[in-house]
């Protein structure tokens, strides 16, 4: 497995997406909608919205992520592209890491665009908190995508994949959601690093464990 193989795969996904912008545009619109819908559901009380804001942001990321990951493997299913990829010499691990990298970059791009919308709708002062928020987003996204990429590959051939995929994935990523929301909340309040640190550590640990395990497990998932 080489970094070159991983990058080649991620580049393929990003290039396809960059040329068609099929997924990204749709997902962006969806994420903005989630932010709006929650605003309507909770009512216009600014204090309540401010309290709920970190949670809403991450529910938005996670729902959009579920859609995005489903798409990422739908592309491979059409014309049996995954089978083609599997025929190439080279490590299956590289295939997993490449897909993961592509998904993470795509989700991060999306999140970078959602942050201004979030600041706008929920009246959040983002500038000061931005480095912390981005770090939390990065760690949370890697953890979510690590399990998500594996499960998406697993459910892509099922008839009931649209249902099975979130059903399997969401309970697994509860720790990611909790830690990311708490971390985001700490940075937004300006509570500083000390309060966010344990949550970021937890996210880092989750990332480490699940990227490693999924890397091995991917082999078993795609074998024929």
């Amino acid at each position, binding site marked *: 497995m080489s970094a070159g193989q991983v990058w080649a795969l991620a580049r393929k996904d990003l290039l396809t997406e960059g040329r068609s912008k099929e997924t990204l545009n749709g997902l962006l619109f969806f994420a903005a909608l989630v932010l709006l819908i929650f605003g309507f559901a909770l009512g216009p009380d600014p204090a309540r919205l401010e309290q709920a804001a970190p949670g809403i942001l991450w529910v938005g990321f996670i729902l959009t992520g579920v859609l995005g990951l489903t798409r990422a493997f739908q592309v491979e299913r059409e014309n049996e592209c995954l089978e083609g990829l599997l025929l190439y010499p080279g490590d299956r691990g590289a295939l997993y890491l490449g897909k993961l990298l592509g998904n993470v970059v795509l989700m991060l791009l999306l999140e970078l665009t959602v942050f201004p919308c979030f600041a706008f709708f929920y009246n959040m002062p983002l500038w000061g908190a931005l480095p912390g928020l981005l770090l939390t987003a990065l760690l949370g996204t890697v953890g979510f995508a690590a*399990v998500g990429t*594996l499960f998406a590959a*697993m*459910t892509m051939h*099922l*008839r*009931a994949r649209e249902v*099975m995929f979130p*059903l*399997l994935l*969401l*309970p*697994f990523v*509860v*720790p990611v959601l*909790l*830690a990311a929301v*708490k971390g985001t909340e700490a940075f937004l309040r300006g509570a500083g690093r000390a309060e966010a640190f*344990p*949550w970021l550590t*937890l996210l880092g*640990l*989750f990332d480490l*464990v*699940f990227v490693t*395990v*999924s890397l091995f*497990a991917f082999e*078993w*998932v795609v*074998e024929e």
Partner: protein
Amino acid sequence: MTSGGSRLVIPLGVATGAALLTGLYTGLVGAPADAVQGEVQRIMYLHVPTVLSAYLAFTVVFVGSVGYLLTRREGWDILAHASAEIGVLFTALTIAAGAIWGKPTWGAWWTWDARITTTTILLLIYLGYLMLRAAVEDRARGARYAAVVGILGFLDIPVIHKSVEWWRTLHQPSSLARGAIDPVFQLPLMVNLAAFALLYAFLLAQRVGVGRLEAEILRRRLEE
């Protein structure tokens, strides 16, 4: 002619029945009512044994999953599947018993407490495991996918537990582990723990027997 059940089933059944009856007697009649909580505290004799048996069951799922992926022998998969079903049953029983106890004691069926939420997420993960099995048509592929989920789910348990624990805690820490339990309550609890461990073993032996018969039927059908 292949017999589904093992020779163990009948003696196990008898022992389980006797242990459950003894457990019921010591718990409901033998032990005194709790000084503060009153009669409702007796639910502990069901609640604690079911949750510990469920953890045992999910550990067996993990072992069976690893065993299957390493050896590819169907027996491991049948064991993991059987154990997952019983684990789900026991987890659901735990949550139900806890809610019945929680209503008079805490004043609510449900609270967002660390252990309750962890147990519920466990239930959802292993329900997902069972649904995934049902959704995959190819048997070997389903076994492989399920094994991956069985391994990842088990590894997720400590992370979920830690994250939810930091998130919030209302549940008392384990009285058993702290040694903070009076001998008059401890004896019936131990009897019930043994009884439910036996019940688990009995159900597992039965379910593995059924699993073997299912595999046999499938094999014969394919031969025709």
